């Protein structure tokens, strides 16, 4: 009886955490791999990992960075296994194109395409900062970088996006 109560508590805890953060997990995965179908696979694998190592999460207030770290590792594992090639924006699969296709607003569509084309090194810190609300220190921890490198990447990412959007506006 004690055991089944413990199981129930564990399930509730997991479902609460995942319920709150599954959207962040999916969006982070989608912008890491730039493919909706792969993002779903990565999130599912991440959830399995999270469930099995739930005891490693001592403090639920740290659940978000814990889950996003798992997503990052699962994404890397996925690409190690599949050895996928780099993405050419002019030759996307349906699942890759789906990430860009849903935006009815031209301006936002252009911005999404510009973010899609950013190098991984620039796109990831931007996603963590703007979408996930990470500080530059937290991004540095997550990506294994020095804070100065993170600041440089963020600055360059925005400069690149600003240039692209200005070019689009002129056209």
């Amino acid at each position: 009886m004690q055991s089944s109560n413990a199981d129930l508590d564990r399930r509730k805890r997991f479902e609460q955490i995942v319920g709150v953060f599954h959207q962040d997990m999916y969006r982070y995965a989608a912008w890491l791999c730039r493919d909706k179908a792969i993002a779903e696979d990565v999130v599912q694998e991440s959830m399995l990992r999270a469930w099995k190592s739930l005891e490693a999460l001592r403090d639920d207030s740290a659940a978000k960075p814990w889950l996003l770290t798992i997503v990052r590792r699962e994404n890397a594992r996925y690409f190690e296994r599949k050895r996928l090639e780099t993405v050419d924006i002019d030759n996307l699969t349906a699942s890759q194109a789906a990430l860009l296709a849903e935006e009815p607003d031209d301006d936002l569509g252009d911005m999404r395409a510009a973010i899609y084309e950013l190098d991984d090194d620039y796109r990831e810190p931007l996603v963590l900062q703007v979408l996930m609300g990470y500080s530059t220190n937290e991004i540095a921890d997550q990506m294994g970088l020095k804070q100065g490198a993170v600041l440089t990447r963020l600055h360059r990412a925005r400069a690149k996006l600003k240039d692209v959007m200005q070019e689009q506006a002129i056209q």
Partner: protein
Amino acid sequence: MNCEEYREAIGADPHFDGGAGHVSECAACQEYRREMLALDAKIKSALAITVPELELPSLDEIAANSDSAENVVALDSRRGIPTRAWFAIAATVLLAAFIGIRYIGIDNSSYQSLAEEVLAHSKHEPGAFEPSDKKVADDQLYQVVPSNIAELDHSTGLITYAETCPISGNEVPHLIIQGERGPITIMLLPDEKISEAIPLDDENSHGVILPVGDGSIAIIGSRDEKLEEVQKQFVQSVMWDT
């Protein structure tokens, strides 16, 4: 703080709240900050893609297998394999075993050089080309690489294969670790003394046999794999006289 410093800080984080003294007196930087905040709002909207209805994993199924936490594998690789496919796999394994024995076990005297033999052996080893996330058991690793040969653990890299293999008539440790671009073959050759590094190169892979004291180490990866860090780690780990 001057304009350049302020704009760098704002470019890295438009919500940066330092430099108040400068920005209060600089209309251009005030405008730049407004632009960057507007850009950030647009970035945030663009990043907020629609999240589909995700199929959450069945907790009942997971709980039933909860002892195998280390064995989580990709969803697609967990799909069932038809019986006919199992027979095909079995036949392939037998054929590979036959070829392995034919070319590695018996016919190694036909190689013209150590480089040729090492390269050929690496091509015929199971696991040499398939990425894996399953590390080899510690017992197996320490049996293949005894402490008088090298001191290794998984901090060296994800070691997914460890077997003893015949090279130039000696049984040597043959390891596969997972690199950034795929599997990397390592052969520890404590009895193969060479005077200088021997490059290894073919259509799909590259590597080197490095002289290390009285022996050598062979390292082979895919053409776009960077091997320098792996070389350094393995050279440091060997225990024979260097």
